């Protein structure tokens, strides 16, 4: 394998990546990353609203990987509480003082239609419509299969400055790679 760590470091620096992670995610990894991410954004003088938006999107996305990634570390069928799920997270600078939060994980190909319709249902709504939908769902029972409140995607869309960008790449018959890219402008 020909991997030059210095080249990698330089590329990350040049592309102004603030944070990246690829591998098994535990709740403690999210806690640790959230601490350094906030410090980093403060250091960059991102401003309170921008910092909060980036932070919030990061938490929702990372918790989505933790809850829904179809790729797990090893075979942990009997230990569902402590299972680690695998995903990739990149946060970087976008344009003039903005940021992108780019996350991906494996999903079951059969789940694409449902996920796509969930994203499409929020991606073109106005901020007012998103607020109304958020409030409506907040008082409703979560949908079957949801491990949280079912509000994560709406929250991400509310904090995003542009319509959510997403993609599904086929891996094999059973699995696909899902990615979602969210931009916060300053």
């Amino acid at each position, binding site marked *: 394998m020909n991997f030059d760590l210095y080249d990698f470091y330089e590329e990350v620096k040049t592309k102004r990546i603030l944070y990246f992670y690829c591998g098994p995610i535990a709740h403690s990894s999210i806690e640790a990353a*959230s601490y350094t991410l906030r410090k980093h954004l403060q250091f960059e003088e991102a401003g*309170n609203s921008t910092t*909060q938006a980036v932070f*919030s999107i990061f938490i929702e996305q990372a*918790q989505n990987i933790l809850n829904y990634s179809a790729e797990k570390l090893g075979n942990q069928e009997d230990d569902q509480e402590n299972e680690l799920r695998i995903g990739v997270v990149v946060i970087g600078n976008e344009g003039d003082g903005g940021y992108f939060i780019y996350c991906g994980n494996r999903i079951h190909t059969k789940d694409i239609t449902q996920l796509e319709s969930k994203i499409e249902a929020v991606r073109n709504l106005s901020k007012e419509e998103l607020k109304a939908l958020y409030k409506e769902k907040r008082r409703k029972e979560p949908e079957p299969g949801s491990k*949280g409140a079912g509000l*994560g995607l709406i929250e991400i869309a509310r904090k995003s400055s542009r319509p959510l960008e997403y993609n599904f790449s086929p891996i094999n018959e059973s699995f696909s790679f899902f990615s979602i890219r969210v931009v916060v402008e300053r």
Partner: protein
Amino acid sequence: MNNLLIEKTQSTPTIQFDFLSNVLKISGESFPENTAKFYSPVLEWLREYIEQLDSATEVTMEFNIIYFNSSTSKIFMTIFDMLEGAVENGKKICVNWRCDEKNETAIECGEEFKEDLDVLPFNLIIEGDQ
């Protein structure tokens, strides 16, 4: 009834529910690994507390939350709906939603809860640097 005390972690708030003073405080961050599991004893305590409450006792619930995730938002709404129900039944409860003047997100979130409540007194208290 016992007090409910839960110490904060990096992703869960401090819970200080004081049965004698009738001041119930939630402060810090809230993005637990399992939100339903973390808040289950909190909701349970509140249910019991409201049940035994008479209509003369004045209760203050203090929120001072820096950040909370979307699943916590749903739990908070559940708490406010419980309190609102109690107020409709003649209990004297008010909520103080405290936030730092620089935390625009927390201020906005407070406003959005307030918009969804009818009878529960919900005070948005914006605090400057101490």
